[in-house]
Structures are given as structure tokens and as C-alpha cells.
């Protein structure tokens, strides 16, 4: 790890001001992902700006839905009664992630900004277009067992966001509140926050330099109350998803009135599937419908040698998740 200076910011204005003065500085909250990246020389920052004192706290009902401060910890949010009752998929996505120790440290904002677990990105000895633009992507012809089959490009096939929370947030129409150095706030849906790799896999989100995540707001909805997050991994705990599904259904009289579907572990970003939702909406809540929706969700998949299994796995994961919420 390189030498760096450390400063604690007392306000968002102070934090963004420091970032403006030192563009290569980084914000640090729980530090569970940033320090790993720095120790492995994947990121170098001359300065860390501690934002733990920022007042981006609170888990509360608002007229827009549930508002969660970006500085809340994963464990606090995952175990919060409102989240458990109104947004089970969000709670499950948090509590199935990482380990209790990490969940106690990691902030919601930091979780949303996790970086890929692609082995070629995580080892600075490899070429990687995401890390060193133009250096190449050995994963395409190499070990792509864990990598994406949706939204890939010739430059990158990494699951840029490897985590769980944003998959649930993407499914449930969550919106991020961002704040820049001028104190100006803007709202970006999670589905639009992450960008596809295309030719610029180094750019992963629409976050502007210095911009802070202030909060995430999840609208209340019948499909949110009847939602779940199903995660498949190679060991029973403490592993990233091979495939996951966040789904929410509003079923009345056996017919699906509204549906929300997002997949994790298979896309280059948290993969909201309007194709699956279209199949589900208005259809009977049956396994046949769910299978059709799953097929629609994976229709554009581009698997490689090692991750061909993910097409079937993601479909089955989605079907199982839908079966669970359909009851």
C-alpha cells in the first residue's frame, strides 16, 4: 500500500471540498473494500477522507418510500424491522452477504460501490481493461467461471458489481441521492447508476468525481412487500453469488399484477430484467409462467467456455425465487 494522508470530514461540504482539491483522494467509510483494493495496489490514493461523521444516517419512512442513509451499516439495515417487513429482498440481500464482521463495518454507500471480484482485475500482475484501459482482457479466453454472461463487451466480462444489495435495489426501483461539491443533490435510479462496460470498462457508474452517495430510497409497493432474494454460491456462506435473483410479485387471484426481477452474478451490472417482468405481468402465477420469464431474462446471454452453466443456473435461480414469493 502507498503512503497516504488521512483526514476526517465533518460535513459533506468539507468532504467534497477536499476531493475537489485532491481529485485522486478517496472517501473511506467502513473501509472493507477500499483497503483491500489499496493493499493489492489496485487503487492508489494520496489521501483518504473519512466520511463516517457525515450525517447520512437514518432508516425511515418518507413519502417517497423507505429512505436509508448511505452511512448506515449493512447489519443495521438488514436487521431493521421496516426493511424486514416492507422489503424482505433488501434484508435478505444484506444478510446473505459477506460475514457478520464485515456487515458491521460496511456502509450502504460503500456496498453500492464495491468493485468486481474478477480474478484478473484483482491481481495487478494481469492485464485488465478495467484497471489499465487498453491492456486487454485475458478473462475472455481464460478463467471466466465466475464472470458475466449478460451485458458483456469485447473489453470486459466482469460482474462489475459482485455484491447483493444493489441487485435487490435494482429490482425494487430504488433511487440514489447523490451530492456534489457545490452541495447540489441529484437523484439517480439504481438501474441507471451502473453503466455497461462497452469500450470503457474502467467507468462503472455515473458517479461524478467527488460526488457522494447520500441516501437510497426504495418506493413502497405490494411487490416490494412480497419480495425475496435468492443467492447461489459454492459454499454455504461467505461467498459471492454465482447467480442470484431479487424478485417481487404482486399476485391477486392467481394473476400477477406487477412483477420486479433483477439478477446478480450474471450481468456486468445488477441486471434488471424488463423482459422477464413483461412475461410475468398479467400472467398466471405458475411455474410455466416463471420458466417463460426466466427464458426471457436470459435470452441475450453470451456465455463463454467456463460460465455456460450460468444460463441454466440463473434461470433456475429466478424460477425458484419466483416460486417462493408466489407461495
Amino acid at each position, binding site marked *: 500500500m502507498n503512503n497516504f494522508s488521512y483526514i476526517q470530514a465533518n460535513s459533506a461540504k468539507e468532504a467534497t471540498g477536499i476531493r475537489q482539491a485532491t481529485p485522486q483522494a478517496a472517501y473511506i467509510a467502513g473501509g472493507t473494500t477500499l483497503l483491500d483494493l489499496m493493499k493489492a495496489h489496485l487503487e492508489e490514493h494520496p489521501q483518504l477522507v473519512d466520511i463516517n461523521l457525515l450525517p447520512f444516517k437514518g432508516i425511515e419512512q418518507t413519502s417517497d418510500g423507505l429512505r436509508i442513509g448511505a452511512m448506515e451499516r449493512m447489519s443495521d439495515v438488514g436487521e431493521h424491522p421496516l426493511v424486514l417487513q416492507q422489503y424482505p429482498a433488501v434484508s435478505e440481500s444484506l444478510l446473505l452477504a459477506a460475514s457478520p464482521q464485515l456487515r458491521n463495518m460496511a456502509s450502504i454507500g460503500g456496498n453500492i460501490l464495491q468493485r468486481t*471480484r474478477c480474478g*484478473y482485475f484483482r491481481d495487478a500482475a*494481469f492485464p485488465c481493461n478495467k484497471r489499465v484501459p487498453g491492456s486487454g482482457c485475458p478473462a475472455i479466453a481464460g*478463467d471466466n467461471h465466475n464472470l458475466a454472461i449478460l451485458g458483456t463487451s469485447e473489453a470486459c466480462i466482469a460482474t462489475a458489481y459482485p455484491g447483493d444489495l444493489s441487485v435487490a435495489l435494482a429490482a425494487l426501483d430504488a433511487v440514489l441521492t447523490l451530492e456534489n461539491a457545490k452541495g447540489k443533490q441529484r437523484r439517480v435510479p439504481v438501474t441507471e447508476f451502473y453503466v455497461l462496460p462497452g469500450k470503457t470498462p474502467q467507468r462503472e457508474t455515473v458517479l461524478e468525481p467527488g460526488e457522494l452517495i447520500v441516501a437510497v430510497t426504495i418506493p413502497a409497493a405490494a411487490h416490494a412487500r412480497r419480495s425475496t432474494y435468492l443467492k447461489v454460491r*459454492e459454499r454455504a456462506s*461467505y461467498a459471492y453469488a454465482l447467480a442470484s435473483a431479487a424478485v417481487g410479485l404482486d399476485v391477486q387471484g392467481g394473476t400477477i399484477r406487477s412483477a420486479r426481477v433483477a439478477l446478480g452474478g450474471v450481468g456486468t451490472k445488477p441486471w434488471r430484467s424488463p423482459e422477464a417482468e413483461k412475461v410475468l405481468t398479467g400472467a398466471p402465477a405458475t411455474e410455466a409462467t416463471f420458466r417463460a420469464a426466466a427464458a426471457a431474462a436470459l435470452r441475450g446471454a453470451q456465455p463463454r467456455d467456463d460460465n455456460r*452453466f450460468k444460463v441454466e443456473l440463473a434461470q433456475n*435461480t429466478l424460477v425458484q425465487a419466483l416460486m417462493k414469493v408466489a407461495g
Partner: protein
Amino acid sequence: MTFVLQLVTLQNIPMDTEPKFFETNPTAGVVGQPLNRVDGRDKVMGRAKYSAEFNNLPGLVHAVLKTSDVAKGRITGFDTTAALKQPGVLAIITHQNIPKLAKTPNDAEGKKAIGAPMGYLPLTDDRIHYAGQPVAVIVADTLERAQYAAALLRVQVAAEKPLASYEDPKAQLFDPTKIQDGKTQAHVVRGNAQTAFAAAPIQLTHKYTHAINHHNPMEPGATTAHWEAPDRLTVYESTQGVTRTQKALSTMLGLSAEQVRVVTKYLGGGFGCKGSCWPHTVLTVQAAKFVGRPVKLSLTRPQMFTSMGHREDQTQTLRLGATNDGKLTALIHEKTSTTSPWDNYAESNSKIVNMLYECPNFEASYQLARANVMTSTFTRAPGEAPGSFALESSMDDLAYQLGIDPIEIRLRNYAEKDPSTGQPWSSKSLRQCYARGAELFGWSKRNPKAGATRNGRLLVGWGMATASYPVHNSQGMARARLYADGHAVVQSGATDLGTGTYTVMTQVAAEALGLPVEKVRFELGDTKLPTAPNSGGSVAAGTVSSSVYMAVQDLWQKLIKVAVLDKKSPLYRAKLTDVEAKAGRLQLKANPKKGEGFAALMKRADMADVEGNGQGRYGSGYEDAQAAANADPAKKDEAAHHSMHSFGAHFCEVQVDPDLGTVRVTRWVSVHGAGRILNAKTARSQIIGGSIFGIGAALMEGTVRDQNLARYTNASLADYHIPVNADIPDMTVEFIEEHDPYINAMGVKGIGEISMVGVSAAVANAVFHATGKRVRELPITPDKILGTKAV
């Protein structure tokens, strides 16, 4: 007292120099009891010092390794400018400036003399042979400064295209003739397996692949090197054998063994990767010489994947011929695996295939391919673990094909003597292991049909497999000193891998001395102590316990001699052979009331302490006819020439999600017959740990080497999965009581490795029973299960 000794001569008193084995009742004393770890408190209090924790050495500084990004090439230069400008940087050591060693392993003679695991030492030239190879050692006053300087050091490399494994189409396979550094014959032929196979009514031919596995002990490799004088070196080393490290370092440095002291007080696991002296150790020692200060180096977790060996990537082809009633007629085993540019290393998988079942015809061969990887090395049950995966999976196939219960098929092929040598077993309790394991597991309730048992959506499967591990030849020394006040110190230069050597040796010594365990301190892990073998190949418990036992017997013999010469002793003028030591008391065998405690005798003789030395020998190479005769005079003639093995059986239940491909082990039973068990608690922990190790290999462990760049893509514990608590159910472990008079003085076989033999097959067999799908590629990850739903 010396006066008395001068008056009486010992000349005519016959001496009982051969202590009788098994004189103590194995169930009566503290040996075998579930004693808590004697070092447990120090460990949880943080007082146990591991090899990277000797931080009070004067002027201690820190070294880190700079390793190669590419797997093949030539170093054309270094740009040290930025790194050397950093404050606190003391040295950047490369092949260009490193002091020359007296010997390196780069030639066959040097490798043998050093006992090196790898025929190449980094920093001896400009070549790069594997990704992760050290290319420089950076020394600085703090760890962080050394790490940062290493990051700033630029290595200029002319990269070449590497070869990643035997699977590369360009790989050149060759017949190594011998494997394991020439220790093991690659070709073994018994009977005529080809003809017998061709004639067999049942013929099974299957390929089994095993992923690369890394040992990943909790404590990484670590070295703290301290030159106390120009010709006197002390090394605190994370090793399974201080003596082997001492030999390697002294040979490389051109010093005598006496000038090199190696200390390993505590070890945070090894599993074989710490069984040899790897390059980072001598590089640290050279760095300490270079900067003239004590130097500490800890490998990082990613470096652990390219510094201390691994279990090699391998394919086995097993051809099994059998009669229609399930009797084996032929076994033909072929193994193909990757080795390094220099060494012919392969685990000897075929050994267990040759000896586990009665089969008149057997043939084994090996093929290797050189690739740009470091040399692989022994990994817990080297050969037996992957070999048993192939054999025990095929035995399961045979059982299903013939509609015979998997236990019954094994009983039909039960080997009454060792098929590979024709020798009788020194002891074998495998029948009891099957029976007891089946009882504990409820095997009789098994549905014989595969894919037919469900728990809701989940498929339920039961599988079992046989375990066996040899008793290797080994010997070692111990010293016991008994103080007149009733305390004792017992020493042997052994290693405690974390599995309980401190504890069990304390028990053995306490029982032999007749002292409470609190009065006995056992010391280990130092070349200043009597030489013990490497803790590897499951030999430590058997060898060290025997040497401790023998050392205490030696001590008693010395005291008995004093007693029979002491006019005030009730044993005065008794024949030495008529006197025994029991529970700390010296007494006449014929009349135990006549005798006295050691304390009274030593007080009269003005002896502050008495010391004994003992040699423990272990394995068939040291089989002692007298030892067997002592245990059972009727067996005197048949003593010697036994085949010595532990045996056991694993039973496994899995639940498989046919949609998601996940396999979870939900029940586990292991029953072993492994000679005398020294501590019921630590032994149980060993078996649990080994079984979990095996479940990891079966279901999730695998290091992935990029086939184009020959570099690992998951060299971290986040991405190389080992089981977590949630993967492991409650486990049932039992031992069959076994008294083996031939093995060694204590009748101990050792349990470090048998615990994982057969485990992956038991899991795979359970997966087959659950799904009807036979997976022959480890690990059994969800991608290999998917598609089973239709079955």
C-alpha cells in the same frame, strides 16, 4: 553416594535394557484421556509465540518478496531508483547482488544434499520459470516501508510464452520412471493386469480429475533470521521439521548443523506445505546477512499460492476388472500430472490402489508434463487422498452395476493381507470400522436405488468409502529429566502443527513417570533438543510418543540401578530385571509392596534430578521381533515383516438441490482403527479437521491456473473457497480400540492423514446416490451438478 557406588560393582547384575511394551494398561492411565490442550490457554491469551512473533530481537527489520508477474522470461534489469529513495529502505537484493551460497538445489547433487523440495532456487540467475517466483527481496525498517518500496521497484522482463499444464496441447508428456524425487518407482506391475482386465466380465474404465489444491494453513510461511555471530545463526521458522530446515540451511550456507539453530515453538497448521525448506527461508537468512540485522519475513496470502508447493493438477484413469459377483480381478492405474521445469514430482496415487483390496493383478504408471509452475509437494495424504477418490468411486460404480451394497462389495474384496507385498497386516480393524460406521449412520435403512430419496425439492444421498494410510518408517529421540521434587521436563525436537503434540506427549510422559500432568512440561520445536522426525506422513505421534516412553524407561533404569546399590533402599541388591517402575514407584515385580517412591530414593542419594534418553522407532522398517514377543510370546516367530496401515470408513449424507446445483453435507460418520489413541479429544478434532479438509477438496477447493498466462486467478481466501461452519454438520467420530504390538513402543499409528483419505469419494458417492449422476471431476461445484433434474 559416589562412595557406595565404588564399593559395589554392577558387573554381575543382569540389565533389563529392553523395556517391555504394553506393560501399562492403555485405559487406566492418562494416556487416551480427553485432556484439554496444555497450550490452549497460551494460545487464546496470545502468549504462544509463532515464528513471526519474535519481535524483541535487537534491530529487527522487515523483508518482503517482490515476485514475478509473468510465468516465463528473463530479467533484463531493475529500476531501483524510486524504491531506494524511500525512507527506511535498507536493501534491495536481487540475483545481481545476492551473496553466493555454498550450495544450491539447482543441480541434482545440491538438491539431494540440501533435501530441497524444488530443484531451483530463485535469485540464482536471471531466469523466470513460474508466476510468483521471487525476483527480489526488499528490506526496510518497517513492514509498510518494505511493502511500498517493493511496489515501487520496477523489474524489466523479457517475457516468453509459458506452458501452463499437462492439459496444454503443446505439453510434452514423459514417463518419469521414478516419482517423488526418485523415492518411488513409477511403474509397478503385479500379476498380469492387462490380460486379466481384457478377460474380466465386468470392465470399468473411468477418468478422474483433481483440481490444484493449496494447503492454506492459517499461519502463512514465516521466517525470522538472526545471525548472532558470523558463524552462528538462529532461525525462527514456520516449519513442520526444525531438523530438516537446519540441514537445508546449513548445507546451503556452508555451515555445520551445529552452527544453525532452528526454532518452531508453535505452528498454525502445515498440511505438508511446511514439510520442506522452501526458497523464502534461505532468502530471508541471506537478507539478514546482507543488512547485518535480524530480518523477519511473512509470506502474504497470495504468495502462499506460489511459495510452498501445492497438490498438483492431475488426471487418473482407472481400469477395474471384476467378476460378476464383484470380485476384483484387475486394477490398472494411470496418472498424468503437471510438474515443474526441474523435478519429477507426483503424488504416488497408485499405492493405495495397490493395497486397499484383494486383487491379483495390478499395474500402475505415471506420466508427467513440465510446465511453468513451481514444484508441487506433499499435501495431506499425498497420493492416498486423490488415489482413493478414483478407486473408491469406481468401487461404488461396481456396487451399483451389480446391485450389491457398497459395504458388501468392499467386504467381498477384503484384503486379509497386504496385496501389494503379500505381508500380513500388523493389525487391521476395517471390518469393525464398516460395521460400527454403518450402525452409527443407520446404513441399513439405505434405499439401494440412486436418485430415489427426497427431502422436499432436495435430493438426498448416502455414500461411504474406505480410508487407509500407511505407517511410514521413522525414528527420533527424546530426553526426560525427573526432578526429586516430583516435576519433570521432557523434550524432543518435534513440531506441534497445532494438533496436540504438546498435549499428548505430556500425557505419555506423565503416565510413564507416574506424575500428574500438571507436574510435567513437554518442550519441542528446537534443534537444541533431541532430534525428532519431520511432523509429516502422520509419523509424529507414533515416533515421538515412543521416544518419550523410551526416555522415561531409561530414566527408571538409572534410578533402579541406584536403588539396588543403596543399602537403605528396600530394593538393595535386587536383580535389576526383578524391579519395575510403576506409578512413580520402584518395586519388585514379584512383590510390589517391597519398594519405594523415586523421591525418597533420590533424596537419600542427594540427586537433584535424573535424566533419561530414548529412541523411538516406528514403522515396519524398524519392526522389532522382541517388541512383539514382549506383547505376546506366542507371536515371537511371526514378528517382523508386517505391513502396517491404519484403516477406516467414512459415511456421508448429502442434500443436493437439483435446480441450483448446490451440494451440502448434512451428516457425517467416520470410524477409524489407528492403533492406540493418545487423546480422545485431540484425536477426534484431527479426524474432524481432516474430514473437513476432504469435504473442501470434494466440493469447493480448486486453484485455477490461467491456461494462457500460467498464473493463478483465485489466489486469495475470498476466491479459493474452503469450507465455512455453515458447510459442515455435526460430525460423529469413533475409534476402534486396537492394540498393535509391532508398530512401536506405544502402538500408535498416527491419524493426521487417514482422516481425509476416502473423504472425497464418500461425498461423490453420496452425490451419485442422491442424483444418479457420477461426478469424476473435483471439486463437485454446482456447474457439474446442473442438468441432473431429469434423472
